[in-house]
């Protein structure tokens, strides 16, 4: 079963729109206050959309939302971060976890600089999909609703912002997406290349090249503890050392019912 490329092209066009829109806004429409607010909104969406909705709730089922309203809100945030529906994104992500940094990885940040740049922009070849990998999400009516109406919701959101004010759409969609996309790209590419680590370290001897970074854990809602995540994919709280802190875990405890926190026994701390 081959992935439907048209879906991929549509999301790429929306992402390109966000990048180009952000560039144009910052070059020709600069407003310091709006830049700060847009980046704060991007930070919020990175947490609630990318990290909690797409990653921890949907892909790894690290927690269940406490009620349906919270679930719908998370699915909405997961939609407007423009990475594809939970069903599309989780299929890729679950395959990635089983094949990380190998030639079967759907987005391996290996090889040439050009390949790394392509992966940075989340551009990778269509791959053999297996919808059975996301059967749990297909069986969930809320996930399917957001999947089937993905582009209506996402484009509707952008249009709504534009109708309020074009500047609002330019900043609170395009510029905010820079933060969201940076977060995803950092995790997909740089968190898998130890030689680019800034004070990085590994505590689990995983078969891939992932490492932890406290700096990026602060910027990206705990997702910077990427070596811990790849070794313990279902953990909702990725801080396992006494001096690590994952603030997203506090939010998850407030809005959801976390999966049992049972980290593997870690190995030696290896500073990079």
């Amino acid at each position, binding site marked *: *079963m081959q992935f439907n490329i048209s879906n991929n092209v549509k999301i790429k066009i929306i992402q390109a729109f966000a990048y180009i829109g952000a560039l144009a806004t910052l070059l020709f429409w600069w407003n310091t206050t709006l830049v700060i607010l847009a980046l704060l909104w991007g930070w919020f969406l990175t947490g609630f959309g990318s990290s909690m909705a797409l990653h921890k709730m949907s892909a790894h089922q690290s927690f269940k939302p406490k009620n349906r309203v919270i679930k719908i809100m998370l699915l909405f945030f997961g939609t407007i971060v423009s990475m594809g529906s939970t*069903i599309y994104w989780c299929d890729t992500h679950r395959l990635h976890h089983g094949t990380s940094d190998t030639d079967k990885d759907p987005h391996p940040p290996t090889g040439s600089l050009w390949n790394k740049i392509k992966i940075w922009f989340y551009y990778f070849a269509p791959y053999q999909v*297996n*919808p059975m990998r996301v059967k749990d999400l297909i069986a969930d009516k809320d996930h399917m609703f957001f999947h089937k109406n993905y582009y209506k919701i996402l484009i509707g959101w952008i249009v709504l912002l534009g109708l309020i004010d074009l500047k609002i759409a330019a900043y609170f969609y395009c510029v905010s997406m820079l933060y969201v996309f940076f977060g995803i790209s950092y995790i997909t590419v740089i968190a898998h290349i130890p030689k680019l680590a800034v004070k990085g370290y590994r505590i689990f001897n995983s078969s891939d090249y992932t490492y932890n970074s406290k700096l990026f854990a602060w910027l990206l809602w705990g997702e910077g503890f990427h070596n811990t995540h790849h070794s313990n994919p279902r953990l909702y709280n990725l801080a396992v050392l006494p001096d690590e802190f994952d603030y997203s875990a506090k939010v998850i405890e407030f809005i959801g019912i976390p999966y049992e926190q049972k980290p593997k026994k870690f190995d030696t701390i290896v500073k990079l």
Partner: protein
Amino acid sequence: MSLPDNILKIISAEIKTPVKDIDINKNIHDLGLDSLATVEIVISIEEELGIVIPDDSVGDLQTVKDIIDLCNRLDT
């Protein structure tokens, strides 16, 4: 209602085509079912008819007849 009729009803709802117009020997992709919709049908069969379809069988389902035959085998 027989098992094949129930399955056809589920497929009919998914592809929005009357049961009488479904050619059971046609490839399911030609009926407008992509791989995701096929899994949706599998889930509906499991939930509505109580038949558990093994994950590794789903990739082998090429026609509506394949689905009916598999369910008949699993139901006995």
